[in-house]
């Protein structure tokens, strides 16, 4: 792999992909797979889900409103790079430190990883680490996401990372569970290979959180021209994914599905933890205690993009 120690970015050119990590933006700024740009902006931390009717009824969104801000805004506190076992910090990576790397043997690497540490825009702040790793014998970027909670924060609507694709996928197919699944609504989901045409929003009369797929081994997003972006679980685990043509805040603001902006991009959330939907009633009952996300917990997910 070729590494590019640019003034504000780390570039990595690997087999079949090209990635640019922006120090100033604090994340994966560009990911070209199959000759196509896959990112509209850096991935963001996902902490909000559009209020469901049950969330509204039990007051969850009011109690957990600060996570809406945290979903919108988070702070990158530090970053570091590891190239074939050599740790590179901010001093080495940014100008003028990078001047020394122009002819470094690290420009040709077997393994590269970069970790961004985030503080949530909450008080107290929780920490989130996102590590992107590439190896010259892999065909993609591995993402390790870890949320490390603190006491004193309200229950989380969701906990994960969100990718915004600059195009609307023509459809997606996945290996995993049928239907839409939430931790308290898994029963009846069949293991198998499933597909959805287009990028629908489940048409609840009032737009809300929808479309979660838990227990997924692999999901492939299809470009209308035939390219594929694959997200694969690693280490024998599964992932939880959701693909929508709008952000949770756009969903939150829509009184009806027809109020949503015209689809222009694809928002893919990979959730390390998913809150249940509840269902006993719509005016007071929370999801069962095992189906809420304690903000003091630690949540991890890992997958590859290729």
């Amino acid at each position, binding site marked *: 792999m070729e590494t590019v120690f640019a003034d504000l970015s780390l570039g990595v050119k690997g087999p079949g992909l090209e990635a640019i990590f922006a120090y100033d933006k604090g994340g994966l700024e560009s990911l070209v797979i199959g000759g196509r740009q896959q990112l509209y902006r850096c991935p963001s931390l996902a902490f909000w889900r559009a209020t*469901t*009717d*049950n969330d509204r*009824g039990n007051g969850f969104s009011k109690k957990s409103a600060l996570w809406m801000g945290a979903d919108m805004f988070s702070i990158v506190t530090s970053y570091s790079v590891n190239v074939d076992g050599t740790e590179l910090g901010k001093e080495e990576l940014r100008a003028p430190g990078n001047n020394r790397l122009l002819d470094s043997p690290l420009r040709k690497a077997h393994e590269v990883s970069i970790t961004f540490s985030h503080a949530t825009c909450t008080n107290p702040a929780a920490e989130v680490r996102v590590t992107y790793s590439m190896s010259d014998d892999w065909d993609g970027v591995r993402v390790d996401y870890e949320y490390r909670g603190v006491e004193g924060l309200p229950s989380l609507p969701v906990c994960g990372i969100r990718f915004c694709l600059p195009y609307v996928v023509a459809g997606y197919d996945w290996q995993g569970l*049928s*239907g*839409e699944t*939430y*931790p*308290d*609504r898994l*029963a*009846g*989901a069949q293991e198998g290979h499933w597909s959805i045409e287009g990028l629908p929003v*489940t*048409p*609840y*009369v*009032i737009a*809300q*959180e*929808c479309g979660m797929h838990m227990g997924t081994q692999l999901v492939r997003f299809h470009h209308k021209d035939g390219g594929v972006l694959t997200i694969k679980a690693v280490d024998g685990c599964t992932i939880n994914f959701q693909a929508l043509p709008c952000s949770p805040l756009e969903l939150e603001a829509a009184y*009806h*599905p*027809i109020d949503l902006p015209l689809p222009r991009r694809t928002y893919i959330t990979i959730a390390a933890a998913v809150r*249940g*939907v*509840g*269902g*006993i*009633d*719509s*005016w007071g*009952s929370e*999801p*069962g205690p095992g*189906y809420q996300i304690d903000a003091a917990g630690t949540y991890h997910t890992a997958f590859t993009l290729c």
Partner: protein
Amino acid sequence: MDIDLSYLGDLSRYRVNCRDAHSDHVHYKNSGEVGEASSFSTSLDGSWDFWWSPDIPHMDECFSKAPCQIAVPGHVELQGHGQVQYINTMYPWEGHEMLRPPMVPEDNPVSRYERAFDLPRSEEGSRFILRFEGVEKAYYVHVNGRFIGYAEDSFSAHEFDITDVVEEKGNILTVTVFKHSSASWVEDQDFFRFSGIFRPVSLIVLPVAHIEDLDTKSDYHKDGSGSFSLSLKLSYGKAFHGRVRWKLGGIASGEADIDESVSSISFGTEELPSVRPYSHEDPYLYDLTLTVEDSDGNTIEVVPYRIGFRHVEIIDGVLTYNYKRLLICGVNRHEWSAEGGRVITRAEMEADIVTIKGLECNAVRTCHYPDRLEWYSLCDEAGIYLMAETNMESHGSWQKDGAIEPSWNVPGSEEAWLDMMIDRCRSNYEAFKNHASVISWSLGNESYCGTVIQAMNDWFKEKDPSRPVHYEGVFNCPEWKDRVSDFESQMYAPPSRIRAYYQDGGAKPFLVCEYMHCMGNSLGGFTEYDGLFDELPQYAGGFIWDFIDQALWKVDEATGGRYLAYGGDWGEKRSDYEFSADGLLFADRSEKPACQVVRHVYGNRLR
């Protein structure tokens, strides 16, 4: 036109010149017609002349103008007349008028419908009946300018005998419908508030001798035998001699001579050594055929009916069906169409049957009123048990913003409401008493409790000892529990409360008459209820809330696209917005993702 407006606010005037409620059988001219349209029935549905007045003071002015056209059946609000409104527990006049029962709001739009009709060819001695299967909420019927009758109870069929006022040709039928009457206080269902003739209207010919009512009892015994009894009510248009014959499949039959003095006949109980029981799994029905003949043996009318042998009983606090524990895996169903509101088509009903079977549900509660007549026969054929609910809901009279506040409440213990509420029980019972699918009578929904509701309970118990009576509202009035409802019925009780009922010594079958509120993205935790079947031998199951979102297609002005609109989208205040969209299905009858778990859990439980 002679309209006595005092009826609207008079609790004793709910049924003026209506014929007695009777079984929902169809009579045919001969056996060849059976299964086709009856030539005794002429549909009056279609386009009628129409006038609309926003209130009573403007009636004369509005009704003197040229008419427009309106579709019957249909809600007037969905055809451009008056305000579409969805509101839950609050009365529809909330914030606009301060009223207490039985006051009638001033905001009371009036619809006048008119059409001409001729009489079909008929034999001497025939009688002519107008049948209205559903009109919201109070209406006066005139034919050729003469007052015929008045009725309330929006969801029960009413019939009026017009034999004495009709001519062979050119009759004018006028129906004047008021959106509100005193009955509005007990029709406060959580739904869209509509007005008008919303179910079919027909002109029925009764031949010279006619079976007015059939009352069958078809009990299944533990040893596989059965018993069957039949009672008939008869009416005549003139002097008559003939006979009535009946035949039940190949297993029983009988006959009796009749003349115009015989207004009722009871045939003795037939003991049948072996019958095939009716059930959800095997909805086997026997064909009952009744034939009325004149003294020369000519057929006067033929009445077919489908009979199921079954036995419902609460034994030691366990709800049983054919002597086995019955596990109710049910769903509440409002009648709904995103196109027509509560005006639904036969095709929509048939689609619902397929969906309900596909979701592995075995039972439907007809929340919160009697459904279209066809529905009960469709459920008989499909094997869907029905909790047949009476048209009553007065939620707004005792619960305010979620808190119980019964400082005033109807019907409560107010004697003035008694007769009209019993009449609603009678209409429900008489129409549907012969249906194999009906396993229980429900008094209505969320109306608190008092002597009137106890009387309704007693009325059903006396009329029909073969089916348990259900009423949830006593939950809020525990002092009535020993007198009202054969079930401990609660709504939205978490599993812990169901366990607690038995831990505290509860002895009735526990039914969650509404549970798992499927509003938006919901139905999490559904499996926890299923485990109660194994844990609690007296747990009877429940009915999911509910079957289909109540939302209506509307055109988006910004895009010209169509969308499913909900409360508030017509500018109405007050409204409870999307609270009526709680279905397993979206309003266009496509499935919500939550259906996956229902099919799995109910399917595993029942198979």
